[in-house]
């Protein structure tokens, strides 16, 4: 009986891994192609038949991309803006989500509705009013201005997501703290935040990604070449008449690394922690 179920479990596990691997292959093939292209000298970018293994392979594109025109600077700019945006966005949206999830107050429905509206309007159309606003606030051509607008833009989604997670946290835990005399801030900091690590991690990753990838707004407000962010730098490799594809893909491969790192770091810390965690009260 025991051996039977053990083999069955192993069989199910192998089946899972197999299906997942097949899916992963499909996920990864375009990247393999992109990575392979980034290793080809520029002239052979579109060759027939397409080869997944570049031959000859060269890292010239990577060195060219990195040394071209302050690329390292743009990388750091994007990194700084993304980290700051993530921090502020997670903090502010978790506070708002806590208010929506746990308190009843006049105007709750309306304010939440306004949040939803913010979620549904395509941001492309807001560029002109936002640009004039940024000008009036003196936030043009500044990285901190970028953080200001990026944070504002991510608040609706993050609050929405966090609110539903907060609502799932059992009220009894919080009420116990109330009995102990804990005020809302203490409850927020000591109970809600620690228990929502996976949600906070998820929201953090989304915010980081949104900021890291954002192109149109950054292009519109940033003029000073020293303040450019990475997506602008990558776009610049596309000329009016031709595109340096090897450089574009090399630069893009470099750009993927920090977000992946953030994902790997945060995922490990928080989702694996959850299985031994508090909700087993």
């Amino acid at each position, binding site marked *: 009986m025991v051996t039977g179920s053990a083999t069955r479990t192993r069989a199910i596990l192998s089946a899972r891994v197999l299906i997942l691997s097949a*899916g992963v292959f499909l996920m990864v093939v375009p990247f393999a192609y992109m990575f392979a292209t980034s290793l080809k000298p520029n002239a052979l970018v579109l*060759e027939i038949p*397409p080869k997944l293994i570049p031959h000859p392979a060269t890292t010239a594109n990577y060195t060219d991309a990195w040394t071209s025109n302050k690329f390292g600077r743009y990388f750091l700019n994007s990194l700084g803006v993304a980290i700051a945006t993530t921090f502020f966005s997670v903090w502010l949206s978790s506070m708002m989500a806590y208010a929506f999830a746990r308190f009843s*107050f006049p105007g709750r429905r309306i304010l939440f509705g306004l*949040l939803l509206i913010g979620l549904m*309007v395509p941001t492309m159309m807001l560029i002109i009013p936002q640009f004039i606003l940024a000008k009036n606030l003196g936030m043009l051509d500044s990285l901190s201005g970028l953080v200001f607008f990026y944070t504002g833009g991510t608040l609706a989604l993050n609050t*929405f997501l966090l609110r539903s997670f907060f609502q799932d946290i059992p009220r009894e*835990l919080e009420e*116990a703290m109330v009995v102990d005399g804990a005020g809302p801030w203490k409850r927020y900091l000591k109970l809600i935040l620690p228990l929502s690590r996976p949600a906070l991690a998820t929201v953090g990753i989304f915010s980081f990604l949104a900021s890291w990838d954002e192109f149109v707004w950054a292009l519109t407000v940033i003029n000073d070449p020293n303040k450019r962010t990475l997506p602008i730098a990558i776009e610049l490799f596309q000329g009016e008449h031709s595109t340096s594809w090897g450089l574009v893909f090399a630069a893009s491969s470099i750009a993927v690394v920090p977000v992946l790192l953030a994902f790997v770091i945060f995922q490990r810390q928080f989702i694996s922690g959850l299985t031994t965690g508090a909700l087993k009260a």
Partner: protein
Amino acid sequence: MRPFSRRLRTRRSRLTASSSSTSSTGRLERSATALRFGGRTVQSSKRKETLAAYTFLAPGFILFALVVLYPIARAFQISLYHWSIVPGTTSQYIGLGNYTHALHDPIFWRALENTGAYMVFTVPAQIVIGMTVAVLLDARMPARGLFRTLYYLPVVTSWVVVSLLFRYMFITDGGLINFVLHDKLHVIGHNIEWLSHRWSALAVISILGIWKGIGWSMVIFLAALQTVPRELKEAAAVDGAKAWARFRAVSLPAILPVIAFVTVMLVIGGFNVFISVFLITNGGPLDQTQVLLTYMYRQAFSFLDFGYGSSLSFTLTLIVFALSIAQLRLFRRPKDAA
């Protein structure tokens, strides 16, 4: 965290002990409210609650109102005018003129169709596949972290890059896809002209959307699945339920609100598709693959007709809003039952 629960049980027993010893109902009421709000009277604690709520809400909401709500209001105002972009010049007020113009614009209707089609192709696929992968990953297995990271990889790459990548992969002669399908696997008779026809081009754009989005919904579903208490799943297994039945009875109802959320978000995202269409076909050939946002972009930034462009984006918003309300209603009923 375990000490907490022990304290909770002792607190409760001590409380019930104390309340049973009170004589007047007033004191009972007061201690009950003391339990719930930690304040003195119901009224001041209500005010305290409101104040607390606003304190938590204020910083974020003010930023949100400034950066998002105010521009939305301005953009709506712009949509009611024949707007002149040069500051200081007067624009001509035309009320709903831009909106009625859209209703008579055949390209607007085609863009609406295409956007709807994209949504219909990509949203269910992302939910189903994302959920499948999340379920598969919701178990102890080797290289689980690696799998998670690899599935998430497309989400993490910029839309600009993957759009260009897919465009290159689907080139008619010499693209990777036709090469594999035609020259290697011999599944098709001759090279498909993917990007030259409306529906095949939309298929390519949809495949890109699905490929890029699976990891996003997977991550959310996985986090949700992991909050489903293991005892419930194990209890169902002990009862002899098979995997699919277990899933339907235990996990699915528990994460229904998350599914609702993901669906709403994917629909919003689907309607907001822009960069992939812009870079892969730019609405072509001959406006066959226009979606609402690419058409809006052209009106606003190529033709400088911001009033019209704005009206298109608000029409889009209205549709998305209506759809989201409908979806939330749809998902609410079974949840209340459960």
